[in-house]
């Protein structure tokens, strides 16, 4: 059996005095698509932020192994260079920095880390054009400041475009589907499917079954009050869509 790409053991994390993640165990294998669902405020974005290394959160207990390395010892940029990518729930705007310059700098940082030569301007431009097609991004976006004045849906597509450019081994998609119209949802899902490889794993955080019709998960986890309270095959998502969370909450609370 292959080694997990990511192993999370008994992860506890808090912000201030408030404990938000309260003992998470999770393995993610290469090539896997893992969906994380759960009611608002259950800690999904917190888990993503802790994995990406956001300093606002204190990890009080537990460990995370990524690619055989102790993730918690790495800075956010080292995690990124090791192949961890987070598509943000709320992507920020970066004033004055064009998408092209931003991605060229980022990609060459990653390449440096992997012992590769930086791409020259020509190679980089042709790569951008090729990958932009995946998520139907117009080349006119390359010269615009990152996310500045982008519509909500454009920002989300831009996240997937960056994913396509940076080729991570683990991509975490935090509600990439929210705010997308039906056509854009398809475009994003097709883009993600085109990016699936036997090595690359995806963690897809979502509230809706609809996205999972397109990006079919290998496993679905339900997060509630900072714990994974149920895991199952893709049918679990359909059940949740039909019945809501109450039935599992009750079982979870009964067990607690």
């Amino acid at each position, binding site marked *: 059996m292959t080694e997990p790409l990511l192993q999370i053991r008994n992860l506890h994390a808090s912000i201030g005095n408030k404990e938000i993640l309260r003992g998470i165990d999770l393995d993610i294998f290469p090539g896997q698509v893992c969906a994380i669902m759960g009611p608002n405020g259950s800690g999904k974005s917190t888990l993503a932020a802790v994995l990406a290394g956001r300093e606002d959160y*204190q990890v009080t207990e537990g460990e995370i192994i990524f690619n055989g390395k102790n993730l918690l010892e790495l800075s956010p940029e080292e995690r990124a260079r090791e192949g961890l990518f987070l598509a*943000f729930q709320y992507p920020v705007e970066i004033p004055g920095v064009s998408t092209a310059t931003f991605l060229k700098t980022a990609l060459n940082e990653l390449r440096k880390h992997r012992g590769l030569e930086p791409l020259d301007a020509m190679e980089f431009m042709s790569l951008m054009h090729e990958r932009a097609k995946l998520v139907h991004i117009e080349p006119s976006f390359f010269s615009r*400041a990152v996310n500045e004045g982008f519509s909500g849906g454009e920002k989300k597509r831009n996240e997937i475009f960056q994913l396509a450019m940076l080729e991570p081994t683990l991509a975490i998609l935090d509600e990439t589907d929210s705010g997308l119209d039906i056509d854009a949802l398809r475009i994003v899902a097709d883009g993600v499917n085109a990016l699936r490889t036997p090595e690359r794993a995806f963690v897809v955080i979502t509230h809706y079954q609809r996205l999972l019709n397109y990006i079919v998960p290998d496993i679905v986890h339900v997060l509630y009050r900072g714990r994974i309270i149920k895991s199952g095959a893709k049918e679990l998502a359909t059940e949740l869509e039909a019945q809501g969370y109450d039935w599992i909450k009750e079982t979870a609370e009964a067990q607690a």
Partner: protein
Amino acid sequence: MSENVDILERLTAADYQYEYGFESQIEEEVVAPGLDENIIRLISQKKGEPDWMLQWRLQAFRYWQHMSEPHWANVRYEPIDYQAISYYAAPKKVSQARSLNEIDPELRQTFERLGIPLHEQEVLAGVAVDAVLDSVSVATTFREKLQSLGIIFCSISEAIREYPDLVRTYLGTVVPPNDNFFAALNSAVFTDGSFCYVPPGVRCPIELSTYFRINARNTGQFERTLIIADEGAYVSYLEGCTAPMRDENQLHAAVVELIALKNAEIKYSTVQNWYPGDKEGRGGIYNFVTKRGLCGGENSKISWTQVETGSAITWKYPSVILKGDNSIGEFYSVAVTNHRQQADTGTKMVHVGRNTRSRIVSKGISAGYSQNSYRGLVRVNANAENARNFSQCDSLLIGDRCGAHTFPYIEVNNPTAIVEHEATTSKIGEDIIFYCNQRGLDTETAVALIINGYAREVLSKLPMEFAVEAQKLLTISLEGSVG
């Protein structure tokens, strides 16, 4: 386990390393502190000035005695004791040096450490340098080459002696001695600076540059620069400056006058990197400067570009009086403040002639606990038919303890004028830094990327040789804060 530390706190609290903070052991003659008519006579005599110059200074001093320090700028500082400042300091061995080879080796080394070699063969290709240490000009390079074109480029002291008619015709015509408190002070006690005259129809083929260095303690630096582009002439001029790190504040009150006659063009660029003080705000230069250009003839053009990263306090408004019909004035500025620095800077564009055009692009960057204000005036006089102005004033805040302020003043007295003003404020918060980190960029790279993107439009106006330097300097002033 990660500590809950504020990233930006760490960024802006790191020890600032001012690269040029060394002090040279050069024997200097420094006159005792204090200001009265005798000191002015002494300065004038040391410089071997003609009597008219002395009288001009004394007149300025009398104006100054009846003026009071302006306090309308958005800056705070302890009162300056003008009697505690020494008004003249000069390296002892310089006054006699007639050629570059005779310069005191220690002095030469000082400028070499600053990246300003005074050997001509090593000087940046295509740049002539006038180096000013404290009160005197120590060397001017490439003079012969310029002379063959009829271009005069020398220290102002020398110009007063050698070209008195030119100096008398133009000195004080753009910034009169009684213009303002600091200009009056400068007119009374100015010690050195650069002079440049480009004759009709001549395009100056190389960049002219003055490098100002404060070295002596408890002295003020009062330099005076006068640049004249005669009809159809063109010149591009660059000014740079640094000072040692000291705990006390030092006053720098310069006056720069530019005169562009018919069809002439002057490009004036500044990379200001005076010592900004330490992170608690101790020490640093008070940079109180009056810079003004006169587009005197029709179709003339004056363009100011400034990159301001240094000084504890900056108070300066490089301005253009657009007197000639069809004349053009431009102001491109990047002003960076970090730690406890304060800057109140901007421009004045005064439209007098017909079809005059002005363009203002101001980019303020504030970090730490600093305060950064843009103050700009656009005035269109009654006879200035078809005047046009466009102003763009952007502010970038790094962290949330600094301040950015914009004070645009617009006075339009002619109905055909079109005056446009745009302003934006953006903030680099932790969210943006984290987003960049998540894409593999470390914080320093992220800040540099944002700053350079933000300042690009202004940097692109600098002479090529300096654009790269200026870009580095911007990054250093903030990255110095980034550690």
